[in-house]
């Protein structure tokens, strides 16, 4: 989970298209329950451990957090499973923003619901314009990301209503903050049960 901020600055980790949930958090770690604090931490330790061994480790062995704060990726980020463990693992590992060309539906919804990081969409595909290890800074109000290593700036799509939900800590945080907790009334009749 992250604090409200105007800027996000840190090292970048670059991935390609179709980064699926099995890469983000392999199924063998799904026995961890995210609402148990010790297991939430452990999910962070295994974030992106599904990547082939040719990739630099996202989290170093023995660590619980990554040195990379920002992930840059291509299309369809988070495709595959509905496991909420996926955005949670990234957030637990210390990711503050993902900047990708497009998201898979459930993953985007889960990121918003948990408020674990800012889910940005880039206007163009940035995977060729950043290298893993580059330093970057995201200006949230300007909706822009700067590659401090190459000194180039790129546009992001504005987050719109999603920003407030993330800043409030996710769906429930937002609902409480705006006084709308529990979006409705209990069903009046259970007519279907005879």
């Amino acid at each position: 989970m992250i604090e409200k901020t105007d800027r996000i600055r840190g090292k970048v980790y670059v991935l390609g298209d179709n980064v699926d949930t099995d890469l983000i958090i392999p199924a063998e770690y799904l026995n961890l329950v995210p609402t148990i604090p010790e297991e939430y931490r452990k999910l962070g330790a295994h974030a992106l451990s599904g990547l082939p061994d040719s990739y630099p480790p996202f989290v170093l062995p023995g660590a619980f957090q990554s040195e990379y704060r920002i992930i840059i990726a291509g299309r369809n980020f988070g495709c595959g499973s509905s496991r909420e463990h996926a955005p949670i693992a990234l957030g637990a590992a210390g990711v503050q923003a993902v900047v990708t060309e497009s998201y898979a539906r459930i993953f985007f919804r889960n990121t918003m619901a948990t408020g674990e990081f800012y889910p940005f969409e880039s206007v163009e595909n940035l995977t060729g314009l950043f290298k893993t290890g580059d330093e970057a800074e995201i200006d949230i109000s300007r909706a822009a990301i700067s590659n401090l290593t190459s000194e180039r700036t790129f546009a992001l799509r504005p987050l719109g209503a999603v920003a407030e939900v993330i800043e409030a800590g996710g769906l429930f945080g937002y609902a409480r903050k705006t006084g709308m907790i529990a979006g409705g009334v209990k069903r009046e009749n259970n007519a279907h049960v005879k």
Partner: protein
Amino acid sequence: MPSTITEKILARAAGSSRVAPGDNIWVNVDILLTHDVCGPGTIGIFKREFGKTAKVWDPDRVVIIPDHYIFTADEKAHRNVDILRDFVKEQGMRYFYEPDTLNYKGVCHVALPEEGHVRPGEVIFGTDSHTCTHGALGAFATGIGNTDAAFILGTGRLLIKVPPTLRFNLNGAKPEYVTAKDMILRIIGDIGVDGATYCAMEFCGEAVTALNIDERMTLCNMAVEAGAKNGIIEPDEKTIDYVRARTKLAFEPVYGDRDAQPARAWDYDVSTFEPCVAEPHLPSNFALARERRHIKLDRAYIGSCTGGKLSDFIMAARLLKGRKVSIPTFLVPATTEVAEKLITETVDGKVLVEIFAEAGCLDIAPPSCAACLGGPVDTFGRTQDKEVVISTTNRNFVGRMGSKDAPIYLASPLTVAASAITGRITDPREFM
């Protein structure tokens, strides 16, 4: 203004006369499904947000089907089932298909319709991406995460956006060597793994209505692999017969308006389709089975919500009868009901389990998700090294079945059975 079946179901669930794609609406939930991997996290959020002693909105509308990590020594997996059991007891829920009891069923997306929880016209959310399977029975069904599910537990409602409909007209007479799996792999191959993102995939046409319910479920099951929000098939007599045989609860099917226009439509002549595979490492990596005859395999796997239903095993048995497999062949029936039918159903007078045993398949495993998604290291069928696998399952991402070095080819039960015989990717026509 004519509406599609998805729009009409959602309109009814939202108490609206009409909804349009792009509308953000609150829908009443008919069924919430969860299992052992996502249930505990969902319960944790529910208690945290609604209170330790909070009661769910309607205990009869929550269905808990443990299936993912069941036959394992993993302690946390057992702990997670304990968490579910405690919650069920506390809430007075009646639909809990508990492991180690006679009530255990197995794979949630096969058990849910088997147990009568899927009814046309209803709205189903599940903490599993393959919840889209249930559109096969004319319901709106989609996967969500723990937080959304916890929200539903407390309120019985969810805020969603109405998806645009993509229509896939599948016409022509399906050849006997072509299955629903070949049909959906062809579609995903054509539109890509994000070709249907946020959309409803509607499957129509004579080739769809000719499918039995199992095959319709296979079609809708993989809609999520194209990024879809839901997959759906208009209910007909087959649907009603299936559902009436399994539940006494009242239901009212919803039908799309005949002249409702989808956002986009594709037309296919299924009589031209051929058996295919999805090559590593994306479900959209389409190739014809007959053009991959040179690929050597180490393992065949028949199981999962996608390819472990009774019809899938009957198809495999037709090919394996009187023949022998040349590679280790793993069989995992999706549910206890499927497992029981393997002992009673026959192909040409021979019982399925005998066909598989005589063919040299490994002993049939107890029903669960097993190796479809790898799982704990002691999971039946989990890859450990560089095994090249052909499988009736739904995903072939790197490491999906356990080992990062084990490539996976997705295929129909006919193609998997044919390939198990030769030890290479094989078009089932070689044996038909």
